[in-house]
């Protein structure tokens, strides 16, 4: 059996009877950065939502620290230490940047730790500190992505799951966001990254999986995947 802080075994998800994930198995070890690559509609977001308990699993298991969590509520899963930064960001738009960040620490009890985390996020994204009193909706797309990631970091996650953090950003900003992911990796954070920027994602991740219409069709280290046929076929749709 596969080990890892997060292990997924033969996970199947259906939307109104229609199979979308058709038996996914993968694992992420502590301290690892693992990326999941796949074309639009492959089921990447569905996979992360299923891990979060936001989409019921039809079959299969999700194990976190060896415990089955596929029946847990989303709120309980967050408390265990799994944090999801969704593709849609889901910021609380009329309230301020800082209030958004503090909501990310909702599951934290110690005020001192929350302050320390806020300081950490502001060091990572100095621009957010400048805009801390601004409504989240008034930020640019790139800044909103920083809030989304920063908010995810506020609860000291044991694993951070990022869903296409570079989506819709200008090329400079894509690099900036992925550099941030690299920094977090260097700090020892365990990361599950969903991306469509294949080259950059494989360059920064320790390992990767290729998802194609709900199945894993390839896995391996960055350079190995880069050279593989699966990457070409999954992204050229051949």
């Amino acid at each position, binding site marked *: 059996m596969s080990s890892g802080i997060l292990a997924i075994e033969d996970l199947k998800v259906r939307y109104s009877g229609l199979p979308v994930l058709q038996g996914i198995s993968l694992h992420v070890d502590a301290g690892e950065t693992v990326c999941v690559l796949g074309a639009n509609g492959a089921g990447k977001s569905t996979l992360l939502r299923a891990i*979060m308990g*936001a989409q019921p699993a039809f079959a299969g298991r999700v194990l976190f620290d060896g415990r089955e969590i596929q029946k847990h*509520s*989303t*709120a309980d899963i*967050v*408390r265990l230490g799994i*944090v*999801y930064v*969704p593709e849609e960001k*889901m*910021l*609380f*738009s*009329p*309230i301020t940047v800082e*209030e958004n960040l*503090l*909501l*990310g620490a*909702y*599951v934290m009890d110690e005020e001192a730790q929350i302050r320390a985390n806020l300081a950490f996020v502001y060091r990572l994204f100095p621009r957010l500190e400048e805009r801390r009193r601004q409504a989240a909706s008034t930020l640019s797309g790139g800044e909103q992505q920083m809030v989304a990631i920063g*908010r995810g970091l506020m*609860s000291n996650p044991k694993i951070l799951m990022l869903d296409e953090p570079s989506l819709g950003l200008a090329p400079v900003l894509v690099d900036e966001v992925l550099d941030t992911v690299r920094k977090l990796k260097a700090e020892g954070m365990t990361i599950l990254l969903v991306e469509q920027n294949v080259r950059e994602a494989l360059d920064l991740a320790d390992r990767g999986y290729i998802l194609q219409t709900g199945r894993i069709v390839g896995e391996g280290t960055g350079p190995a995947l880069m050279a593989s046929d699966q990457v070409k076929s999954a992204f050229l749709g051949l």
Partner: protein
Amino acid sequence: MEILASSIVAGLLFGMVLALVALGLTIIFGVMDIINFAHGEFLMYGMYTALLASQVLGVDPLLTLPLAALVGFLLGIACYKGFITYILRGPMIAQLLGTFGLMLLLRNIALLVFGSEDRAVHHGVLVDKSFEMGMGIIVPATKLAAAGLSVVAFVAVWLLMNRTRMGKALTATALNPQGARYMGISTEKMNALAWGIGGASVTVAGALIVNFWPVNPYVGLLFTMIAFTIVALGGFGSVPGAFFAALVVGLITEIPGFWDFLTYTLELDWMYDVPMTSFKYMWIYVAYFIIMVVRPRGLFGWKH
């Protein structure tokens, strides 16, 4: 001139009480997009709680406020856990008809338990006392105290929602329930909390109103309509909006007073013949209709 000033003061004071009446309706709508047709019935139970508790315990009705709050909080949570949580799974129409059914249920339980006759508070430190506010304006002590305490309660709930961690989680759920769940905030808990706070604030309002308004099991409907008007005017889900809209609606209830003022000022014979006071509350329904046609989003927009 005195009539005009008296009407304005009376309207604003009643408006402050109405703000507390409408607060729970706007909070529940804000958090879960449900219109609670049974809102006025909660208020009715607050009125009975204060009336009966003060009689049974032999204390002033004002001292029963914490008990009324507790009754409203528990009633709100019971309605949510025992009923609303099930109809949430159904279509929108089930939710509308569901809270309508809750209204009938709560009203008929009251009929069964309390009977249909009017009851009123006859004893209390404030009863039959009044304050001279200058300019010849005289205000009954019960109404003045109800207005003051309503503002205190309203501000307390507002602070709870804006200054505490729990309140911010409630706001987050109102803004984006899925996003809030990803922060570890349980929607189920927040919904129950919204019903608890909503129930407590409206029963406290009822416990204040019973000092100057007789209670019977049918009293809820008028207040449900008033609360709807306020929430529509202030913007569904908006707390500050509810406060200002309530003052406006309070003034609307004084339209007969303004009419009298105009009548005496203009001295037009036909104006004396209009029986304004007999359709005192019609203007609230008229206002509700106008708002829905002219500005369905309310003065402050939906949610914030």
